[in-house]
């Protein structure tokens, strides 16, 4: 019923997804697209939790709960992030991160 070997597949997917998100986070200059990359990263983490829950610790539901909470927090985070982005857009007329660099030195 459960193929333990599949956990490797799941983890490979998760890791790949994570680094795709990282790559996006590094290369995108638009804040909204950076936010998307962050969502990808969060999802890769969720996938990890679920995979472990499914294949290694199926006697508990902890991984699942973490996923639920992460999704909740991600929702909150996205909302706040977007509020910040909009505010930034108002003040800078742009959401290019390269231009928002007041916090240097």
């Amino acid at each position, binding site marked *: 019923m459960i193929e333990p070997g599949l956990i490797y597949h799941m983890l490979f997917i998760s890791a790949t997804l994570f680094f795709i998100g990282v790559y996006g*986070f590094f*290369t995108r200059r638009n804040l909204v697209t950076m936010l998307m990359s962050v969502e990808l990263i969060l999802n890769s983490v969720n996938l990890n939790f679920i995979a472990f829950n499914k294949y290694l610790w199926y006697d508990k539901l902890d991984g699942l709960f973490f996923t639920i909470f992460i999704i909740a927090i991600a929702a909150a985070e996205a909302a706040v992030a977007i509020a910040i982005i909009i505010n930034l857009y108002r003040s800078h007329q742009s959401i290019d*991160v*390269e231009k*928002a*660099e*007041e*916090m*240097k*030195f």
Partner: protein
Amino acid sequence: MPNATYITLIILLPLAGFLMLGIFGRKYFKNTSGMIGTTLLFVSTLLALYTAYGYFFEYGKVDGIYQKLVPLKYTWLQFSPGVSIDMGIIIDPISVMMLVVVSFISLMVHIYSLGYMKGDERFPTYYAFLGLFTFSMLGLVISSNIFQIYIFWELVGVSSFLLIGYYYDKPSAVAACKKAFIVTRFADVGFLIGILILSFYSGTLDFNTLIATLTSPESNEYKNAVAVSFLGVSALTWGLVLVFIGGAGKSAMFPLHIWLPDAMEGPTPVSALIHAATMVVAGVFLVARLFPVFAISAPDALSLVGYVGAISALIAAVIACTQTDIKRVLAYSTMSQIGYMMFALGVSKYGGEEGLGYTASMFHLFTHAMFKALLFLGAGAVIHYIHSNEMKDMGGLRKYLPVTHITFLIACLAIAGVPPFAGFFSKEEILLAAFQHNPIIYWIALITSGLTAFYMFRLYFSIFWNKEADQHDAHKSEGGFAMMMPLVLLAIGAAAAGFIPFGHFVSSDGTRLETELHLQFSIAPVALGLAGILIAMWMYKKESTKPDTVAASLSGIYNAAYHKFYIDDIYLFITKKALFNLIGRPAAWIDKNIVDGLVNATGNSTRDISETIKGFQSGKVQQYAIYFLVGIIGLALLFIYFWK
């Protein structure tokens, strides 16, 4: 036993005067300060005379030997067991003699100044400083501890500094007081190191113990002190030579004499007191105080004293012949006479007949104080009248200043060694001592004595004869009673002091020393003296061109002497050029540029590094994220593969 209270009072009364006048004088004793100072000193002098009487005639002698009594000793600063600075009083022939001389001359000067300094703006300050000086000088002579003597030594130096710089708005006076202080200070370092050496080897600072341990060849201290040597000279000799350097500085011995002529910038009574009669003989006194150690344990040091004294005597006499400022002539004469005292000590031995030089030296100190103070005070009277120090402004004053004239003449005769004035007796003893022990010094002394007569009478004739007095205001008087009385008293002293049988009271080992005149021996010096006087008379009695002719014919030596043998210039070169430029300036430069530069460089490099590093804080989120990831990967690699 002597009464310590009286002796303490002798010293403390002038100090009280100093404190009272120094602190409250300007406000409350504007006009009465002179009288206050003089009265206090008068009491001091009476007490000193009383003490002298008591010591010499009542209790001082035990079994025919004058004892060194210590009626008071108080531990002032304890360094280690046995080594302490004590404030004490030592009563022995020389200290009692000095007590009398110092207080008496000081009293004369106090009285004289009542007239001389009248109306001066800083009258109370003047008397305060005189009080300070008298206090320190009296303290110096009764010191029972070598460090105590150093303490008062310095205090004497500072009061001399203050009094030379009394006319502080004259730049020359300011320069002179600085010079005097610094030159003597330089010598004092020698003294200090000498004290350190002596105290180290003797294990004490107390004079009596120190002399006792360092003169007994059996004691361990003595053996140690002689065994250790540096550059082939024993530690003990080094110590004494260094102490002598201190004395030489204070007593203006060659080559540390350069401050003395300049010190004449001070008020004339001060010159009489400090730079003629009392302070400048402190060096002689110091050598006399340590005389047993010099004579018994370090004859080499003692002969150095002798030669330095002789050279100083000669050089000063030569220079004195060429100077035109009357106070400077007197200053060089002082130096020359102190040279006499020094070499008299130098040729002396310890004990009995052999100790004639010691007695002679002290005797000369005593008589010299009288006639040199008189000369200065007389010169003061002249300057007071003429308002100039230069010989060329003077001449024919004998009619206007009769008292001064007579007293000055007496003093000149005394210093020239004409019998029966005081100088004759003391000088004869010195020459005799030199003749017995060291022919070289004897010949130098003889020449010097002729020169002395010459330059003193050059001075005398230039002031009182020479050209006829011109338009001096007739209404000006010679000076009041206050100025005349000290002149007369001192003249009596200068004339009669020679008849005191000095050897009965003061001798190297405290025993009675009979001194008699050897008439056949006296012929040479007296004849030379008279010759000097006659030459001076021939050259200077009438206004003429003879002096210039003579000077021209001796131009080389005359010029050298006129420029004080260029010693001042050498000093100036060493201090201004060498010391300031070669040490001071580089030190300041190094501090500013190298040491401080290093500090600043540390600061600057820190700033530069941070300038570089702060580029990382670009404010760009993505860069931060990349650093973050690279860091994580790096750490992961580190922990996984390298740091298992």
